[in-house]
């Protein structure tokens, strides 16, 4: 790689790729697991109108992680604690979109401020500090990987269990209530799963960039498909490609993985958006002929 002007070899560099890959194996496994689950939740984040709530929860999760760093306890546990408290508050108090948005607007700066305070008091490695906000450079140790895989497993299992009623409650709440579904309880359960996923995602790409995994993939998928199943499949594919690709591209560089993940994620969205615009222009609704079978 020839560097001219700015030293681009610091951004894209494939020297010693083999040995670096060994180092990044854990990050890749954990990252893909988180991306799979995030891609699964992303369509619900969109239909339930939660992108802003995701951002708010991630800032409180960051505060929890920073607090744990300061106290010298598990960052993952601190992050989960912050996430779950925020998710419960938003889920229980913010049932209507307007209440929820103002609640998140109130919680977010408070969480971020707490996090900044904890980090200012912390005297350890600086990389630990910024990693929480903007993502890790590399290296997820074995215990952390285990914790992340556990979280992802739990979230995926509960999602499989509640998938249909949650879909019903998300896209068609009036009829779901009439059919006896406990929409409010499902909403709280989903917020808790979202909190867990955010806590896991922060460990990889940082609190500020979580939306690239929880909002962008489904937003992109919805541009190109109208079928619930295809949107989910595309969303999971997009988030996994962004995360996996981002980690692989970031390996040889000195930059955290986040910009690679967010750029890939945004690129996918941009392409889908263009496809979506063309489809609308050609008449999205060009109705399929009456079914033959």
């Amino acid at each position, binding site marked *: 790689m020839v560097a001219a002007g700015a030293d681009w070899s610091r951004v894209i560099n494939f020297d010693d790729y083999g040995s670096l890959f060994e180092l990044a194996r854990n990050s890749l496994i954990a990252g893909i697991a988180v991306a799979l689950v995030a891609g699964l939740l992303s369509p619900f984040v969109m239909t339930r109108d939660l992108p802003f709530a995701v951002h708010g929860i991630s800032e409180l999760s960051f505060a929890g992680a920073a607090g744990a760093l300061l106290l010298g306890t598990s960052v993952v546990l601190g992050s989960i604690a912050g996430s779950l408290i925020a998710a419960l508050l938003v889920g229980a108090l913010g049932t209507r979109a307007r209440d929820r948005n103002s609640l998140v607007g109130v919680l977010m700066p408070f969480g971020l401020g707490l996090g900044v305070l904890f980090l200012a008091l912390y005297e350890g490695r600086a990389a630990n500090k910024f990693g929480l906000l903007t993502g890790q450079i590399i290296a997820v140790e074995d215990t952390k990987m285990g914790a992340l895989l556990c979280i992802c497993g739990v979230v995926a299992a509960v999602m499989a269990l509640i998938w249909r009623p949650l879909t019903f409650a998300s896209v068609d709440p009036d009829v779901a209530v009439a059919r006896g579904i406990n929409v409010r309880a499902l909403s709280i359960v989903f917020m808790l799963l979202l909190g867990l996923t955010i806590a896991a995602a922060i460990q990889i790409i940082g609190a500020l960039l979580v939306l690239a995994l929880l909002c962008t993939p489904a937003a992109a998928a919805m541009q190109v498909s109208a079928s619930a199943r295809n949107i989910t499949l595309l969303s999971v594919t997009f988030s996994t490609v962004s995360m996996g690709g981002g980690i692989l591209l970031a390996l040889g560089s000195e930059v955290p993985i986040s910009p690679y993940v967010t750029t890939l994620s945004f690129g996918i969205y941009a392409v889908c958006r263009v496809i979506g615009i063309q489809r609308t222009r050609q008449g999205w*609704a060009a109705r399929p002929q009456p079914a033959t079978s």
Partner: protein
Amino acid sequence: MTLTEAVAPSRVADVSAVLSLRDASLHYGERHLWEHLDLELAPGEFLAVLGPNGAGKTSLLRVVLGLTALTAGHVEIGGLPVSRGNRLVGYVPQHHALSSASGLRPRDLVRLGVDGHRWGPGRTPGARARVDELLAAVGATSYADAPLGLLSGGEQQRVRIAQALATDPRLLLCDEPLLSLDIAHQQGVVALLDARRREHGTAVVMVTHEINPILPVVDRVLFVAPHGVRLGTPGEILTSAVLTELYRTPVEVVRTSSGIAILGLHTLPEH
């Protein structure tokens, strides 16, 4: 949509009331929405619920759905107390414009009616065929896979009705299904509901502001007004004398060849 010949109610084997309200009252704190309401709905009967906004029409549907408890009195579906999620009751909610980005096709919405309440990842045997059958029954097959948000209001209502029929209910509750539809689509939806109740004996309770599109098919009218509730045939209820009493303000009902016009209500705050 072809209308079949009217069938006599006696053809339906089960003659017990589909829905029965006895001396039913609903209060919200100091506000008395309606009191001492008695209603026995026979299989296949078409009931229109009329009245100004805020008088308790939608609350009546919520009571029948088991979502709101009566302050006093009894309400039963097929002889049993109401309960949430009763499969004997189908519900067509008030029309909300569905976003084209909702990630839903008509097929998906109807599918939710079939097995959307079920937990776990397992497949529901026969669900696909059932969805096709329901879509065909309302004439929605040709747009079953188009984005829901891009359908016309009338097409969305047909899909809603297909969804509500998923459990093969004996009672269909429709909250303002004709709102924001043009006359042709209003007639299409009414004809669909009329055919359903004649062919399957499904009783229909429709909350509506528009009496004229349903006048040819409606059996009885329940008028829920600020000063009382009245039940009877359209001819008995939609008269100047009765409505003037219910509103306690002069109301004039004018009958023309094209339908009924209710005059004087624009002076009421609710309208």
